[in-house]
């Protein structure tokens, strides 16, 4: 990788990863007047700079959990804090990447990334510099002026990651970010994300349905169960980063996790 570029990138990052603390978090929706419990009694602590993966069957509320942490959903019961500050609404301290890239189709890649800096006090030139840095970070050089419809799924998702990271959030949330990509692209994107995380050292929480992906990237994997969504099981991935995809230890852990997940399926 290009060492001198990385140096410059690191020089301009002056943020610190955040610590997330969730206590007794519950959330319900009203469905035809009937309360539907989506999440019940979630307790979760994430250390600064940690990478946590969340897996679980569909409908276990893992996406709702991320949306709550991002501040996109309100009225929950319980307590959520990032570095001791209660989470009430969206904030530039918490970034999120969705399964669909959610780039604005009428803006170019560079403009899409720059939109995240609307609230920033930086000057025009500083913003342009920062955008260029992040385009390099996700290897999209040469596509600054491309429109989203001209990008492949993987490239669009890289742009989305750059947009989420440019505000230098203390916490980055990833909601099945590679779910819509083909298998080969997904593998290369996982490697990219690992590199970005090692460089960037944000706290990251990723929701996925891919157990291998969860293990490859996560310091810790959390298994969630459905109806109501709750944390069922937790596993530490005691391997240093960057990891070897086919490490025997990962295989062992995968077997354990799959058994857990199959168990939660059998409950239905």
């Amino acid at each position, binding site marked *: 990788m290009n060492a001198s570029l990385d140096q410059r990138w690191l020089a301009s990052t002056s943020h610190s990863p955040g610590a997330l603390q969730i206590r007794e978090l519950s959330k319900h929706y009203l469905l035809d007047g009937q309360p539907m419990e989506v999440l019940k009694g979630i307790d979760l602590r994430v250390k600064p700079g940690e990478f946590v993966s969340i897996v679980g069957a569909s409908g276990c509320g893992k996406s709702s959990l991320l949306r709550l942490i991002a501040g996109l959903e309100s009225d929950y019961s319980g307590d959520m804090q990032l570095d001791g500050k209660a989470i009430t609404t*969206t904030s*530039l301290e918490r970034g999120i990447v969705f399964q669909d890239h959610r780039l604005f189709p009428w803006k170019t890649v560079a403009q899409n990334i720059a939109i995240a800096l609307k609230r920033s006090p930086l000057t025009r030139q500083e913003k342009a510099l920062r955008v260029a840095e992040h385009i390099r970070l996700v290897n999209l050089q040469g596509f600054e002026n491309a429109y989203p*419809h001209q990008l492949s799924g993987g490239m669009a998702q890289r742009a989305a990651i750059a947009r989420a990271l440019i505000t230098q959030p203390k916490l980055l949330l990833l909601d099945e970010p590679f779910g819509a990509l083909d298998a080969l692209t997904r593998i290369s994107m996982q490697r990219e994300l690992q590199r970005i995380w090692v460089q960037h050292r944000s706290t990251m929480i990723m929701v996925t349905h891919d157990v291998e992906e969860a293990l490859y990237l996560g310091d810790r994997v959390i298994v969630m169960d459905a109806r109501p969504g709750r944390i069922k099981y937790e596993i530490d991935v005691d391997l240093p980063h960057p990891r070897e995809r086919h490490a025997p230890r990962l295989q062992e852990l995968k077997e354990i996790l799959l058994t857990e997940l199959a168990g939660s399926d059998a409950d239905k």
Partner: protein
Amino acid sequence: MISTASAVIGSRVSVGHRMLALTWLISPLLLLATWALVAASGHYSAQLLIPPADVWHTFKDLLHSGELLEGAAFSLRRLASGFVLGASGGLLFGAALALSKTVEVYCAPMFHVLRQVPSIALIPMFILVFGVEETFKVLLVTKAVFFPVALATSEGIKAIPRSHFEVARLYRLPRYSLLLDVVFPAAAPPILTGLRVGLTRAWMVLVAAELLAADSGLGQMIEMGRQMMRIDVVMVGVITIGLIGFVLDSSLRLLERRLFRWKAIKE
């Protein structure tokens, strides 16, 4: 060698294409020829079926005397003032209707009732209220533009996916930026279509109003021609109206294609 061969084939194909494109002209030319022949046969009085050549002469006369351009200028000026008024009003009202619950609750029912009233039917009423001067024509155009633009704007904004608004919330976009960077670009394609529909309707209504009550403009020129049984003047006027309508519509279509290149769908 190969490249010259393919170049020859290529040019032959394009010549063939050009020849094929010419076939589109067959029926208009046939029509013109029939018209000329029937007119020359003398079965009908020249006052009713005037030879195409005479229409062409009248066209040149009217063009050189400045009458045609003056009429077009009067009509277009009315169209432009009414269009600007109606389009900006429609844009603001449509946005308010889509973005504010209050505006919707109080104004939507009346808006949807009023937009049922055809502009043409309002001509007698507007004449009584505003007289036959400029106000009546400009306001008629304003009305014809306002409703389609307001409707397109409000529906265009309402159709914006929630995910776009969520992104705006995530990056805490200020209100002006939410409007400028998200709402208007997202709703721009339907809004431009609304503008196009409004312009077409406005042009039709304006011509109608000028036919009924005007002392200037293309419609008045046609009406004068009719009263003096100058069918050549009427035809020149009708053709000019058609041409102006066509040019206005095509330029907005061109603008649509230009502006929304980001929309290009992958085949």
